[in-house]
């Protein structure tokens, strides 16, 4: 074997393994853990307008005034939810505070008396997964004709979206 042929064969022996080891692809593996937690949210647009009874309708035993200027929005990823309402302290004797929540996703219970609802009372039921935006809240304040003057007072009504 001539020295020239020997060098050629030696070069082939060195380069062949390198060609055999060349990579055209590579992979790694990751495990992703995903979970959707229960999400429940209710928000209100603000406070309703003042409910002042300033005049009587002739022949009426009950005076009332309403406000529907506030709204609520809610969303949940749970089924069988409802909205309940409670008040921080009872209304004065001879007066009533009622609230009605509109609902396009559930069943509104109409006007619900929350005058003494220290424990929550249902106002909307049958809510499932989804959201409901800008639904009207209507408050009605009523006073018996026998009730005298009541200076401006306030109560905090809490709406809770729960199961």
């Amino acid at each position, binding site marked *: 074997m001539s020295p020239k042929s020997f060098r050629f064969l030696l070069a082939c022996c060195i380069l062949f393994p390198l060609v055999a080891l060349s990579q055209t692809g590579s992979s790694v593996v990751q495990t992703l853990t995903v*979970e*959707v*937690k*229960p*999400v*429940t*949210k*209710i*928000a*209100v*647009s*603000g*406070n*309703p307008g*003042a*409910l*002042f*009874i*300033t*005049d*009587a309708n002739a022949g009426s035993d009950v*005076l009332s005034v309403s406000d529907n200027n*506030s*709204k*609520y*929005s*809610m*969303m949940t990823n*749970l089924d069988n939810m409802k909205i309940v309402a409670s008040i921080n302290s009872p209304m004065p004797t001879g*007066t009533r*505070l009622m609230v009605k929540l509109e609902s396009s996703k559930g069943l509104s219970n109409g006007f619900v008396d929350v005058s003494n609802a220290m424990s929550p009372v249902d106002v909307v039921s049958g809510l499932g997964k989804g959201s409901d*935006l*800008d639904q009207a*809240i209507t*408050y009605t*304040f009523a*006073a018996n004709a026998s*009730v*005298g*003057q*009541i*200076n*401006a*007072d*306030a*109560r*905090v*009504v*809490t*709406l*809770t*979206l*729960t*199961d």
Partner: protein
Amino acid sequence: MKLIRFLLSLSVLVGCVAADICAQTSSSASQTVTFGVHRSTPVVVASAQTSTISVSEMGFERTSPLKITVGSDVRSHVLSEISNVPSQRSFAEYKSSLSAVKSFSIKSSSAEKPVVTLTE
């Protein structure tokens, strides 16, 4: 604006869930409901060149302007036109602060003593 606030609250919730730090099965929102009862009784002020009307009887914030009748000249005025009420205040501002005002005066521009009637 309301929608933005709601979407913002949703995004906060989504972030909260992604961070695996909370799960909500109930949520609450509160509203303050203001109420009151005022029996509508006209306040009649006796003849006087300067009449002072107590508004303590009026109870609380007005929801509508009061009608003022001076003598036989039947005119409706908003309260901001009456003396002793800061003239720079708009009626809306005055309406919201009336509960804090105990009295105001009505002065006649003529020698005739007016009969002033204040009604709803």
